[in-house]
């Protein structure tokens, strides 16, 4: 395995700086965020490397649980931080965290106990990367689903309310929108699954191969992970959209857009 040093990584970092320069030239208005995100990525990953090193050494359930909870909280924040019309209060964050917790933890624990079966089942070398991959993808699904939901309801409120006026139950009046949002959240994972191996070599598999794992073994792990990701993303997205739909209507089936921020 070829080890990477500071010099090699610095060369790669030039690409990020070049992207920021190009973004600045094109007046995209994101060169600042791009550089900050790049710097964040480096610092976060280095820290995580250190944390993982410590936790792998300890292998205690409490530590693994603590890290898992921190990961879910951050995922909940990231999934809802850039929404155009988030819900007022902590609702978006809460729905994001709650649904991601349920979907990813259920899939991760089942996989660890039934499919992989390391001893102990929470062995951090398996548990943490697994949860990380599930969360990363579920986060995208939940973020897209919720963002699309609040935006669509905002833009199509007149249609939704016209249907309510005709005596359609709230569930029915937003059925089309709800389906659209769930689909929007699932499509990135679905595309990744369909294109896996042909258009893209999934990151995890590539990493394993670069690190010296025989390709067929790496592929088997990738298949496992893809299936788990699809399951967790579907469950998380569907659940988040469903709960958010409920929150945006009250018991008298009124559309409550006043529960969105800034309205």
């Amino acid at each position, binding site marked *: 395995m070829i080890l990477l040093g500071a010099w090699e990584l610095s060369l790669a970092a030039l690409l990020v700086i070049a992207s920021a320069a190009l973004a600045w030239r094109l007046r995209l208005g994101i060169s600042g965020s791009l550089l900050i995100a790049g710097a964040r990525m480096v610092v976060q990953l280095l820290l995580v490397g250190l944390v993982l090193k410590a936790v792998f050494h300890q292998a205690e359930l409490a530590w693994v649980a603590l890290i898992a909870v921190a990961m879910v909280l951050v995922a909940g924040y990231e999934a809802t931080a850039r929404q155009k019309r988030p819900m007022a209060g902590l609702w978006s964050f809460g729905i994001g965290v709650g649904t991601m917790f349920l979907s990813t933890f259920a899939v991760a624990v089942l996989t660890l106990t039934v499919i992989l079966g390391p001893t102990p089942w929470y062995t951090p070398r398996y548990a943490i990367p697994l949860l990380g991959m599930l969360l990363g993808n579920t986060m995208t699904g939940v973020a897209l689903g919720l963002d699309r939901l609040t935006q669509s309801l905002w833009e199509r409120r*007149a*249609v939704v*309310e*016209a*249907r*309510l*006026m*005709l*005596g*359609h*139950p*709230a569930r029915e009046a937003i059925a*089309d929108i709800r389906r659209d949002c769930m689909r929007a959240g699932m499509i990135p994972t679905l595309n990744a699954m369909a294109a896996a191996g042909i258009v893209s070599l999934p990151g995890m598999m590539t990493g394993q191969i670069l690190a010296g794992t025989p390709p067929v073994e790496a592929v088997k792990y990738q298949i496992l992970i893809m299936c788990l990701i699809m399951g967790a993303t579907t469950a998380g997205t569907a659940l988040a959209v469903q709960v958010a739909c409920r929150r945006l209507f*009250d018991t*008298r*089936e*009124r*559309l409550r857009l006043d529960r969105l921020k800034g309205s």
Partner: protein
Amino acid sequence: MTGAHQLDVLGLRMEGVGPVDLWLAGGECLVLSGPSGAGKTRVLRAIADLDVHTGSVSCEGVAAEALAPPAWRRRVGMLGADSQWWRDRVDEHFDAPPTAETMAALDLGPELLQAPVARLSSGERQRLALLRLLANRPRVLLLDEPTANLDPDNVARVETLVAHYMADAGAAVLWVSHDPLQRTRVAHRQMRLDAGRAGREPAPGERREAPG
């Protein structure tokens, strides 16, 4: 109070609107007027239970809260000022298509039912939306500027159709209109909403009451 009417509204209040008290007997049309921004649409929306409000609203003695919201809105049906459509074809918005006779009463050819919504004029859409609402056989009709997009002939057709429905079904109508001539044509009684407060519109020949 003289017992339950077709529609009873008591102390209806929202932020900046109300309190509004009104009642309507079966077969009666009350026209609500007042400057824009006075909250006429919001009063209709609150009666249809689309907006949060306080006060009580009941239809034939049955309080809104006593019914599931969809059931209430089928009894007390509201027609918005802009008609809304969510499927491609007109007939996909009807549980049971209106009869050719009813359509003819509003100068709508039966072929319009199979037409794509996008090809209809806003006036055609508005008239079809009224038929769509009447298909629920509401006991109370809440009409928000129902003839705003229509030419004079079609205004007359809509007024006639609503009058017939009111008489046949014994329904009550609460009609928001900006047009003073229309108000005198369709109203049995009138009511004015000023800066959110409801007052009685003086009938022709009646002197305005001193402000209380």
